């Protein structure tokens, strides 16, 4: 039977909402599921992890500096825990932090990482997207010494709440932490809006918005719909919105129930981020725009007239 270590990524005392999805992927693999929390003081986060259905145990590794999640500091601790615990699988959420530290873990363990698992066939066989999701590769990973993988969050539902909380155990790991890398600061965008990656509805704007002032009509529609806000790369590159709003192959991969692409042409790199959206609505003045090939509802016309009208009538 497999023994699976899930890395319990967190920020500001909150377990990342993706971990419930990683646990569900772990359940599909099958086995004993342990969540490891690396933090300055992991007690709050550990309690959240312990409440997830399927988790057998939560391990807490407290160490000053762990909250910063510097890859070169976190990776050796994960490697030590994997080896001492005899884990068959190490899983992390495919967030920017998971993508940062997990390959470092894989290299230290001498294994190839399976990036972005989107489906589990067995304990060793998985699907992953390649070419911006335009092809799906099924891989078979060697079981020995272990399997190291990131989970594509848009492909999994969250596990539910456990009937009874899992036990929490404080442990220490035997790892050498280098001092060559220092966390300086995080400039986080504070927003009252639903988080892009977990929002049920998302409204995204593209280059056509033309300025950050004009982007307000996107925010305004989003607020009416209680939606998160995203953007194309062109809108981010042009400085209309910050980088963390980019949706696509090299931005965020999302799976909302309802997605609005407004003034976005539908380049394959953008589509890579919204393939799992349940319903896509596109508003574009060009009837030939590629976005209409994937949209469930298309509306041709000037966004500056249509979006305010939509906001009024929705």
């Amino acid at each position, binding site marked *: 039977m497999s023994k699976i270590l899930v890395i319990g990524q967190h920020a500001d005392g909150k377990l990342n909402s993706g971990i419930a999805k990683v646990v569900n992927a772990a359940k599909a693999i099958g086995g004993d599921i342990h969540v490891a929390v690396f933090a300055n003081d992991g007690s709050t986060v550990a309690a959240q992890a312990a409440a997830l259905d399927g988790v057998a145990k939560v391990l807490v590794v407290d160490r000053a500096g762990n909250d910063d999640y510097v890859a070169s500091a976190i990776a050796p601790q994960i490697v030590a825990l994997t080896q001492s615990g005899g884990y068959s699988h190490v899983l992390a959420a495919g967030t*920017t932090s998971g993508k940062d530290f997990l390959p470092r873990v*894989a290299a230290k363990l001498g294994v190839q990482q399976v990036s972005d698992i989107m489906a589990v066939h067995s304990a060793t066989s998985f699907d992953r997207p390649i070419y911006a999701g335009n092809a799906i590769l099924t891989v078979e990973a060697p079981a020995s010494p272990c399997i190291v993988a990131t989970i594509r969050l848009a492909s999994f539902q969250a596990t539910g709440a456990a009937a009874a909380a899992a036990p929490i155990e404080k442990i220490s790991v035997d790892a050498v932490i280098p001092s060559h890398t220092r966390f300086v600061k995080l400039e986080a965008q504070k927003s009252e809006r639903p988080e892009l990656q977990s929002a049920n509805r998302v409204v995204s704007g593209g280059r056509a918005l033309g300025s950050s002032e004009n982007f307000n009509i996107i925010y305004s529609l989003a607020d009416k719909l209680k939606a998160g806000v995203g953007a194309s790369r062109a809108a981010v590159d042009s400085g209309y919105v910050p980088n*963390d709003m980019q949706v696509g192959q090299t931005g965020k991969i999302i799976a909302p129930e309802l997605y609005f692409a407004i003034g976005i042409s539908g380049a394959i790199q953008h589509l890579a981020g919204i393939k799992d959206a349940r319903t896509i609505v596109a508003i574009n003045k060009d009837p030939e725009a590629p976005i209409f090939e994937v949209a469930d509802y298309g509306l041709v016309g000037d966004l500056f007239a249509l979006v305010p009208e939509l906001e009024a009538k929705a």
Partner: protein
Amino acid sequence: MKALVSVKRVIDYNVRIQVKPDGSGVVVDGVKHSVNPFDEIAMEEAVRLKEKGKLTEIIAVTVGGAKCEETLRTALAFGADRAVHVKVDEEIQPLTAAQALAAVFKKEGAELFFLGKQAIDDDAAQTGQMVAALLDLPQATFASKVEIDGGKATVTREVDAGLETLEFDLPGIITTDLRLNEPRYLKLPDIMKAKKKPIEVVGLGDLGVTAAAGLKSVKTANPPKRSKGVMVKTVDELVTALKAKGLI
């Protein structure tokens, strides 16, 4: 200070990928290839640092078959001084690529290594981090700003929450994000000059690398297709449709 820049040959980002009917992979023959866009950004960053006097030499490196020479020529046209071609004929996976790249980095005595944050074909996004792990060196991934001063690198990184800043002592590894810079257009004289620059060819064995056990490709398939939806004529029609489905 020497810098290494890795460049990978990939199918051009404008190409519509076709999965082979027998599921053995995607069609690569006769398809336009280019330098991985993130690697052009890596090259550009190194060249700008050299122009500012922060670097003395830029070495481009690739791991791949004979056709990757074109990729190295592009890197040389950008401004690499010379190149190393780790020639492999068989398929290699990120850990093996990382072992080869780490060996070249060590052999060259470089202090900075720029890689792309991901290659747009395999989208694995792991090679740079693996190189850093193998060399026990610092890493700063997804860089959107890099400053090199006094034996230190200060790097702004694009992360899910916003922008993070890390500082590390050189030597170290940096992987590039899209907004780090806008690569220059190559001019004909630079392309001509690049033809004369030296490329050293080495094998994995010369670097003391044996290919790591890999993932086995079972099959490559098309993603589920989204069916084309309906075109609505008015906002009213759209709102009615979305309300009927309970979406708004």
